[in-house]
């Protein structure tokens, strides 16, 4: 060890003191933040419990009752409900009338009701994603600094996208429910409008990170604005765009299920009806179908995204929620 002279010793002590001071300050902040969070959390929980229809501790035993109620009469009931096979318990009530919902395609070949409804929900999600990304694609170039130099237009487009993103989906759905009456079109509108806002924001950030050399080259040979964007920027950003669109599709499948539950049709509505009427086999069949579909969609989309943009695809997950 090297002997320290008096001056160096003093400086070390000074550094040490400063370090301890900073550490103390940080600890104080951490404690204050934790106390603040605790206060906010307990106030929130108290408020939530107070304004809830049932109180937490009163209701918690019923949580398990609910799962007990969900047990079907026998294990095959779930499959009968899922594939619309006749049930031995059929007493003419809605609870066991599985074959009623069959959608006949050709002769005796039928699509079980819940599969049909699931396809409806998937179609809602696909159409909404298609229209939403197409519009978001167009808007993103107007919002990107490196493409659109007009500050005012950029500002307006960005605020517009923000409003579309924050606008509650159920209001859009509810409004179009009045115009079109019940059905999938209001759900498509609601999901698509939200998609435009969400995807537009992500897209213009991607566009702003694009390499502008290709664009410069095109400008040098006298290309106009549209061809500069189309040939200079779009090929670069396309993999990212597609990847975001797929992620959005995953989210939209869930969103269209929820919108379905509030009147947009599809599997969400069936689930809400089954749960609220206490039809255990139907509920479980729908949950099973929905779960499988969501897992399948997520896996498929993750696979394609990995092929498109590599490992980066997974880092994006949080950014899109």
């Amino acid at each position, binding site marked *: 060890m090297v002997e320290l002279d008096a001056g160096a010793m003093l400086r070390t002590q000074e550094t040490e003191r400063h370090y301890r001071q900073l550490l103390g300050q940080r600890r104080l902040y951490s404690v204050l933040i934790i106390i603040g969070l605790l206060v906010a*959390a307990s106030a929130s929980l108290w408020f939530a419990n107070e304004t809830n*229809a049932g109180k937490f501790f009163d209701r918690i035993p019923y949580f398990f009752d609910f799962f007990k109620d969900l047990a079907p009469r026998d294990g095959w009931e779930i499959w009968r409900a899922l594939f619309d096979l006749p049930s031995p318990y059929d007493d003419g009530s809605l609870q066991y009338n599985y074959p009623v919902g069959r959608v006949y395609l050709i002769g005796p070949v039928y699509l079980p009701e819940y599969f049909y409804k699931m396809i409806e929900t998937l179609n809602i999600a696909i159409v909404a994603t298609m229209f939403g990304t197409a519009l978001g694609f167009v808007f993103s170039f107007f919002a990107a600094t490196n493409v659109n130099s007009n500050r005012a237009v950029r500002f307006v487009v960005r605020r517009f996208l923000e409003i579309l993103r924050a*606008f*509650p989906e159920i209001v859009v759905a509810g409004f179009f429910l*009045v115009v079109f009456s019940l059905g999938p079109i209001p759900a498509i509108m609601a999901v698509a409008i939200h998609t435009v806002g969400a995807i537009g924001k992500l897209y213009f950030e991607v566009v702003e990170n694009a390499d502008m050399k290709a664009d410069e080259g095109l400008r040098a040979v006298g290309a106009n604005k549209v061809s500069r964007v189309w040939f200079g920027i779009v090929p670069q950003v396309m993999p990212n765009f597609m990847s975001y669109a797929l992620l959005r599709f995953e989210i939209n499948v869930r969103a269209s299920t929820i919108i379905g539950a*509030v009147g947009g049709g599809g599997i969400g509505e069936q689930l809400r009806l089954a749960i609220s009427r206490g039809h255990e086999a139907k509920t479980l069949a729908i949950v099973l179908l929905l779960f499988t579909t*969501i897992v399948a969609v997520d896996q498929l989309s993750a696979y394609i995204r990995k092929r498109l943009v590599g490992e980066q695809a*997974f880092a994006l*997950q949080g950014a899109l929620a």
Partner: protein
Amino acid sequence: MTDLSLSEIEAVATRHPDLFQQGGLRRFLPVFVVAAVAAYLGYVWVFFDVSKVLDRADWEIAGNYLADWIAYEIRPDLHLEDGYISVSYPRYSPLGSDPHPEWVILERADVTIKEVVDAPQDATSAQTQSGFMVNAPVVPEAGNAVADPLAVPTKPSGFMGAGGLVGTKVDEAAPTEVQTRMSNEVVSAQVEIGDAVISVYPDHTEIDRANGERLLIRTSLENGVTAEGALPDWAEQKEVGGKIRMFFGFAGRVEVENDDVKVRRRFLGWENFFFDTRSAFWGKTLGEVVQMILSSEEIVPGKANWQVAYSDIANNSEWQHGDVWTKLLQTIVMAFMGTLLASMTAFPLAFLAARNISPNLLLNQGLKRLFDFLRSVDMLIWALVFTRTFGPGPLAGISAIFFTDTGTFGKLYSEALENIDDKQREGVRSVGAAPVLVQKYGVVPQVLPVFLSQALYFWESNTRSATIIGAVGAGGIGLKLWEAMRTNQDWENVAYMVVLILIVVFVFDNISGALRKRLVE
């Protein structure tokens, strides 16, 4: 730039055949994609039966509801009686219980009214009349003048000639009897709406527009509603003798039926936003309200004036401010608590699920599948399940967000942990630190900013999700919005709640954005 001759261009093309002669798939890929999209859209068109839905779409109602977002209607109802008009307003009119708007000018006069009386009375006093016995001159009354008996001249010179009253004997065997009496009633009304003036009389209605267009509509119980001349394009009649509806753009519309003229006049703005018509502060200017609050004179005995003002605002029957604010707070609480609890639960679990941190493969895989399960069972399913358990309210919403996001956070956190730089951990371990300390000093500092920034992202997005799952019964502003939309009456309330939600989302967006920026730097 050098100009290329044709032979030079061809030379370039032969040197790079791969660029100019791309494979069939690559060359036709755009065409394939467009064709596939078109085919799919065609299929969806059929699947959803879009043409039929569009056919049935009611765009007129959409326009009306859209206007209701920012406007309110005053709806005088002019009922055409036999010889006079009775004017009424809906029970909860925005103008209070006894409205007299100045754009409705009423003319009053003494008229004789026929009444059918059940009990037989002295037959000679009963008189039958054509009913149109007006005692002129009439006095125009505007605005809030209530019938003043003294102001009405009583000298009769009616349509029915000298004296006016012609008595005839009624069949005495009749079980009912027609009786007449004199009364001061409205005999004509002039309503301004947009650029038009609607003059309503008991047997006809005239519409005069500023551009000189004029429409005369005759109304009678026997012949229904008939317009004189062709109907202009701003009026419609679906069947002969049926009601005629006239549209004046944003200003409103008028419906003429054979015994009724319904006026719907629209005004820009949100009516009675602070105080409803029952409040003592109703219709006062801001200065007057402040003065009333500050004055020592108690409006409600035993209660301070500002308390009265606050409770009047919170309990506003039309806008229900208090309820809306509570519900909005519920939604905020749902998002906040759901995200907080989920990230706190996922934090330790993610360490157990990351294969580079806990070497137990069974535990890793088990937890990861659990995360996938929680995430993939949709938030909707959780919301419905917990609504059944706890009843509608924020507890159901908190639980739904908590369950879904524990899965999402678990997945994201464990993936972040698996991607950490191992060097720091090794360094801490090499000086002999205990396993917990290795995590605390070797791992947590690397991932904490990412964890927190993810949590903030989800807090922000859950504020939006909480609105939606609220509508399926999880409580909060979502349910309130849905109820307001279901009744189709309160689109201005919907607009109000949407504005509140947008404000909350923007505020949280900015808070979370600013925090994330500080975390990452």
